């Protein structure tokens, strides 16, 4: 499970000019930088201009920081940032915990457990936009499977449906993401736990350490690196959610399920306000970089 091994060929290295690795790496970096820098610089410029695509095909005048002010003042940005952070923290926590519980089940010797493991990953393989449709069908207030199951179990539901009610819409969107990605945590954590040396666990067992403490104090610290990587990945992916929201709720009702990604999508692709959406692009990119930076600083200090 170790991330990478360092394989430096000392003899070969001396014989080679130093720029060889850079010749091999730079084409990919140059292409990627071009593909990222152009849109970002273009957005940076547009963020200082008034530009609505419905009014004209070109920017309509320099307005300084007004787009940023507008995005921040009408609550569009900050409110959706709060919603997104809530969804991201809850989503990552639930997926990790459920995934860990399932991983422990997968480690047991039961008939059919291998087949279960192979099939379990299927939700993760589906395009998020398709998962959105799948859940829209299952959430339908007039005959969807989920409302029917819940009502049959005696659980009262909002009249407007799970997606149509401000108190449940965000959680209904998040539930679809949890359904899709809990298997991802389960499978990866299963593989990591499988690689924990048996002797360590045996020794702990002989010392009378309870199974719960074995997990918490021995196994989890040993798979820390793997756990951190997947937590970071999923944290960022949930933070960036927008396609599920497009299909399921369009951010509604009201603003109850409007994620940061969807706010940006709406400003640009629905309202055609390129100026405001560009300002939001930059704010979002800065926030995402800051979060990744925090992860890297705290979690990957001793990495590689």
């Amino acid at each position, binding site marked *: 499970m170790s991330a990478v091994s360092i394989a*430096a*060929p000392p003899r070969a290295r001396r014989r080679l000019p130093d720029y060889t690795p850079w010749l091999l790496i730079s084409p990919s970096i140059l292409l990627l930088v071009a593909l*990222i820098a152009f849109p970002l610089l273009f*957005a940076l410029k547009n963020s200082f201009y008034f530009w609505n695509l419905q009014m004209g095909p070109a920017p309509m005048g320099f307005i300084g920081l007004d787009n940023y002010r507008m995005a921040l003042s009408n609550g569009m940005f900050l409110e959706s940032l709060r919603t997104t952070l809530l969804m991201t923290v809850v989503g990552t926590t639930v997926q990790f915990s459920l995934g860990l519980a399932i991983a422990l089940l997968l480690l047991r010797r039961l008939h059919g457990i291998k087949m279960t493991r192979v099939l379990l990953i299927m939700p993760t393989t589906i*395009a998020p936009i398709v998962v959105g449709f799948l859940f829209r069908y299952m959430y339908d207030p007039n005959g969807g499977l989920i409302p029917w199951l819940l009502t049959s179990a005696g659980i009262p539901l909002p009249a407007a449906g799970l997606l149509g009610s401000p108190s449940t819409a965000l959680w209904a969107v998040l539930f679809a993401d949890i359904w899709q990605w809990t298997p*991802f945590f389960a*499978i990866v954590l299963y593989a990591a736990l499988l690689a924990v040396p048996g002797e360590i666990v045996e020794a702990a067992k002989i010392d009378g350490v309870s199974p719960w403490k074995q997990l918490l104090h021995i196994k989890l610290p040993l798979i820390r690196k793997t756990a951190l990587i997947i937590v970071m990945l999923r944290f960022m992916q949930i933070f960036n959610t927008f396609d599920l929201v497009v299909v399921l709720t369009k951010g509604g009702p009201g603003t109850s399920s409007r994620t940061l990604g969807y706010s940006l*999508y709406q400003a640009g692709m629905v309202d055609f306000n390129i100026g405001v*959406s560009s300002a939001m692009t930059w704010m979002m990119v800065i926030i995402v970089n800051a979060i*990744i930076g925090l992860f890297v600083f705290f979690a990957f200090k001793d990495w590689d």
Partner: protein
Amino acid sequence: MEGSESVAGRLLGYAAMVLLLLVFIGPIIWFVLLAIRPAETYFSMPPVLSFKPNWESIRYTFFDPGNNAPQLLNSLIVAVGAVALNLPFSFPAAYALSRYKIRGRKHIMLWYLGLLMAPPVAFLIPYSILASLAGVKGTYFSMILISQTLTIPFSVWLMRSFIDEVPIEIEEAARIDGAGTTTILLKFILPMVMPGLIVTSMFAFVFSWNNAAFPLVLANRSTTTLPVGTLQYFGTAGVTWGFIASAAVAAMIPPMLIFLVLDRYVVRGLTFGSVKG
């Protein structure tokens, strides 16, 4: 642990396993059934489980001209194109990052990883306008090119983990015999990491196939891909649910098959090679 387990404990285990399959596989089967249900049973409650299959949705979406069949081909062209374009960029980079202990290697790797965590939505509007200005909007090329922001970083990470496993001695021997880097890369490393390269390409294919964000803004009606094609039945009356399901199920099948075939490598692919499953 398993040997000393009580009967009740084992029964509980089996119950949990069945529940797991119901929760995570049940909805997929339910959606597949939607594609072949008679329209009057789409929303009948309690759910109708036995019905005479109705092939109308599949016929309409994939056998009537101009509906979803061309999108299947578009998805294939874009995903195969994205993988093909990414290899000459990612393979040399993965090799260099595996074999040379250059300064800043960790940061380069983290930079690639950062790209995989970037918000696609932030780039959609600039890409859309820039593609129009460059006159490539609606082309396969624009989608294949922009997909590189995902396929290159992914492939570098995963391929590097495979190259790390190739013993260095062969290269050293070849170098002593006077082989240059290009020769070593193509004649010695490439054949040895071919399985890893194929695995990487298959996962990159899924990555690109499932991406809906870029085709959403870059494709036009005739070049749009299958996952995005489901949106065309969106917002209209409920009768189109069968069409949505039919197109969506077709979009689901290739990634599922690839994951089943690559079972051994699934963990490795999903973690970009950082966890060897």
